[in-house]
């Protein structure tokens, strides 16, 4: 191997002031060779981002770093501010996670590239502009001559990330450090950015250190992988070797927890077979492809049956089995639903949902997938009555949700549970977890005082949280625990319908796997119908019976999950599925050669 562009030896980062885990990075060593792509992989708290920041001396003041970081012959640790400044951007440059905030909002793209250049040498205005246009061209921004004068808010998310990459390239560093560069982006955009990063190595010979939690990204991009856990290196290995024969237990667990979507190229379930260790999740996923879950065999829990007998279909559900969705009166029945957000400042209204027809049978899980702006969240909000459709018929639990009075809406809502994306914000920070979980019971006057507390304890137990957690504040729970509490709250009134909006996308993969397991168990136990909204096809594949693909407010394709994800009929769905990097480097390389 040639002299490495980056050589990290025994790097330790400590926070002396922190009460718990003061040592965030613990004796980490690895190298990056010229033109090599190395991935630092780990879940949150693994120390991967701190390691990356240490390379450019960007650690917070409270941190203390020891060991050695050799950046192309220059020792970085212990450098003073001025010396660090000359290293930053010129020997190594960094690309950050959030393109929407990584750019200065009040300056043009061209100005920002000029700044990057000027930080290291004197540049004439015209030269800076010429170079900026050149760089924008390199990173694949269309019409760079025009875009160079744009402000960040005039660019799309993917274009912004390209500009951030252009900034990183400005001073021709040997190493690009990319910290979760695609995490905030839609899958199709992610695929483009990954291709760009590949290109930078192939065409420009740059080495790339990519920090990610996404095994698909690792498989797609990396030559070598460093797996981190709790600040320590668990395993370092060649990417093919790592996926084929993971050495450390942790790596195996991590790989097993990754939800997978089968590639469209091979419609057999071959990719599923790589992860035998998670018997539970895979048997469900695999089994589901064979048959739709038996709907009638559900046991309704609790006696809190809604008093309204308005739903005629309800009796049929709780009775004997139904073969196919649609045979009974659906829980959600949308016909040509249109939703508009009124335009501000005299701008035209924005049509978020544009003529959607959908139905959801009792006990069925419908996955609603789409990229940002597809209208999937808006649809979820219509179902729970937070938004009223402008046109079309939106029937939920047998009543037209758009035309309900406040009282009628209240009655319908008592039969719907809702789980949001970010468990940190869905629970009132000032009230205890018990208050939050018991709130639906109190709101609908189903119980008082002790009875509520008892029910809360039962609910917490059913989501595998200790009953004592009822007295805690949401801030005292971890992300996964909060999402469990959110589920308990949604199930408090034993709903017939659950709307889950990105319930696991804020969680680490291992936590996500656990929450998805729990979700499946509860769904079987309670038998609720569920509208499962997610951008993540792999997650939807694990839980959904049927899938609806949305794009720009329209349904592109609906069908059984197995069909839609394995044999997509719509072009867009195929592109969506193909854009997901498969957590298998061999497959990913083959796909890249084909594509």
């Amino acid at each position, binding site marked *: 191997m040639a002299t490495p562009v980056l050589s990290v030896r025994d790097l330790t980062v400590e926070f002396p002031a922190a009460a718990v885990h003061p040592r965030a990075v613990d004796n980490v060593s690895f190298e990056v060779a010229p033109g090599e792509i190395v991935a630092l992989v780990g879940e949150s708290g693994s120390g991967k981002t701190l390691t990356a920041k240490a390379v450019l001396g960007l650690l917070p003041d409270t941190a203390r770093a020891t060991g050695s970081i050799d950046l192309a012959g220059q020792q970085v640790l212990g450098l003073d501010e001025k010396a660090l400044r000359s290293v930053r951007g010129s020997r190594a440059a960094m690309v950050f996670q959030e393109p929407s905030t990584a750019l200065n909002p009040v300056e043009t793209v061209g100005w920002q590239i000029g700044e990057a250049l000027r930080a290291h040498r004197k540049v004439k205005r015209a030269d800076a502009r010429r170079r900026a246009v050149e760089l924008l061209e390199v990173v694949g921004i269309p019409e760079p001559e025009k875009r160079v004068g744009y402000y960040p808010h005039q660019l799309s998310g993917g274009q912004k990330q390209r500009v951030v990459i252009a900034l990183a390239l400005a001073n021709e560093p040997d190493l690009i450090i990319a910290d979760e560069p695609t995490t905030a982006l839609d899958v199709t955009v992610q695929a483009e950015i990954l291709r760009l990063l590949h290109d930078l190595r192939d065409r420009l010979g740059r080495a790339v250190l990519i920090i990610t939690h996404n095994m698909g990204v690792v498989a797609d991009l990396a030559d070598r992988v460093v797996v981190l856990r709790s600040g320590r290196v668990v395993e370092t290995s060649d990417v093919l070797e790592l996926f084929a024969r993971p050495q450390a237990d942790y790596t195996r667990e991590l790989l097993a927890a990754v939800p997978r979507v089968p590639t469209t190229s091979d419609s057999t379930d071959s990719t599923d077979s790589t992860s035998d260790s998670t018997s539970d999740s895979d048997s469900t996923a695999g089994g589901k492809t064979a048959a739709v879950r038996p709907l009638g065999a559900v046991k309704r829990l609790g006696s809190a049956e809604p008093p309204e007998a308005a739903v005629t279909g309800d009796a049929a559900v709780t009775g004997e089995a139904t073969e196919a969705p649609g045979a009974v009166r659906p829980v959600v029945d949308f016909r040509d639903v249109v939703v508009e957000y009124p335009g501000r400042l005299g701008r035209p209204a924005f049509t978020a949902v544009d003529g959607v027809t959908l139905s959801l049978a009792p006990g069925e899980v419908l996955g609603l997938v789409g990229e940002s702006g597809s209208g999937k969240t808006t649809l979820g909000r219509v179902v729970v009555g937070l938004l009223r459709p402008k046109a079309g018929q939106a029937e939920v639990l047998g009543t037209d949700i758009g035309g309900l009075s406040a009282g009628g809406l209240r009655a319908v809502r008592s039969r719907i549970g*809702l789980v949001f994306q970010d468990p940190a914000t869905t629970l009132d920070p000032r009230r205890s977890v018990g208050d939050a979980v018991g709130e639906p019971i109190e709101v609908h006057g189903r119980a008082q005082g002790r009875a509520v507390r008892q029910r809360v304890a039962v609910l917490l137990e059913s989501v595998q949280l200790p009953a004592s957690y009822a007295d805690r504040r949401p801030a005292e729970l971890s992300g996964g625990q909060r999402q469990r509490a959110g589920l308990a709250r949604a199930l408090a009134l034993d709903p017939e319908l659950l709307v889950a909006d990105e319930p696991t996308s804020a969680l680490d993969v291992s936590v996500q796997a656990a929450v998805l397991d729990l979700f499946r168990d509860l769904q079987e136990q309670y038998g609720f119908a569920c509208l499962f909204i997610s951008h993540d096809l792999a997650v939807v594949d694990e839980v959904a019976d049927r899938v609806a693909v949305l794009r720009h407010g329209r349904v592109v394709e609906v069908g059984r999950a197995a069909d839609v994800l394995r044999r997509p009929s719509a072009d867009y769905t195929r592109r969506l599925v193909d854009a997901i990097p498969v957590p298998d480097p061999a497959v990913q390389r083959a796909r890249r050669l084909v594509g």
Partner: protein
Amino acid sequence: MTDTVQTPTRPAADAPTAPEQQLPTATPAAATPAAAGPASVTPAEDVAAVATAPRRRRVLLHGRGLFGLLLVGGILLLGLFAPLLTPYGPTEQIPGANLLPASGRHLFGTDEVNRDVLTRALYGIRVDVLVVFVAVPLGALLGTAAGTLAALIRPADVAVQRIFDVILAFPPIILAIGVTAILGAGITPIFVVVVAVEIPYFGRLLRSSILTLRELPFVEAAEAIGASRWWILRRHILPNSAEPLFVQLALSMSIAVFLESAMSFLGIGVRPPEPSLGTIIADAVSDLDTAPMQAVGPLLLVTGFVLGFQLIAQAVGARRRI
């Protein structure tokens, strides 16, 4: 202060599909490793980021909060126990004590009509107490109600907002002049001005607070389970607005002390011979070179009062930002 520029918001509010909103690992708190792996999937799967719940009362028991509380409390007591602290009456003319300089007998000296300035200053505090603890809460209550109305009832919003705008178009002192023009000088215009000035502050605060909170997932979640407006207001919105309201209350009290003394200073507030810190200062300005304590004494009281409320507001406000 409420800003008047409304930056246009994005039209479409489809959920940001950002997966894995990772906490910035830069902060030490977030750098605590989430230890457990997927094998040990127990309810305690990742380490909770234990954040202590904010405790408002504590911030008033140390540092600037305590100092502010002591200042306000001390001056308050001086005003309430004025009859016990001084042998003179506020309008009593002491024979032979004309324009005496500050001394042990007359700490702030005496004025040109033989009254003890300290006594007048102590009684003068009482006007402020009345304004601070009657007029400000009244204005706060009216403002809070108006703000709630505006936030909850769309047709009322436009009207209430315009009323706020019109009141805010008058700088407080200018408003005071206008009100006095109608009502004449006295304690009534002070009350009217203080109440009027506070209404838009509290109204806008609560309106924006409700509108912001209403967008938050936990309030939407409450709405989605069928909670009524009143329930959401009582259970979620008001408790979560309490702290900014408290900060504003302390700020408004300091503004009220300032307004009262400024109006009296200009001669459009409390009418002599009734004592008020503002009138005492105004009277003392002409004799500043001979009897500085006549002005400085009441000045210290006014400043201490205003400062005390400011410090309380700062202490509680700083707690919020963390």
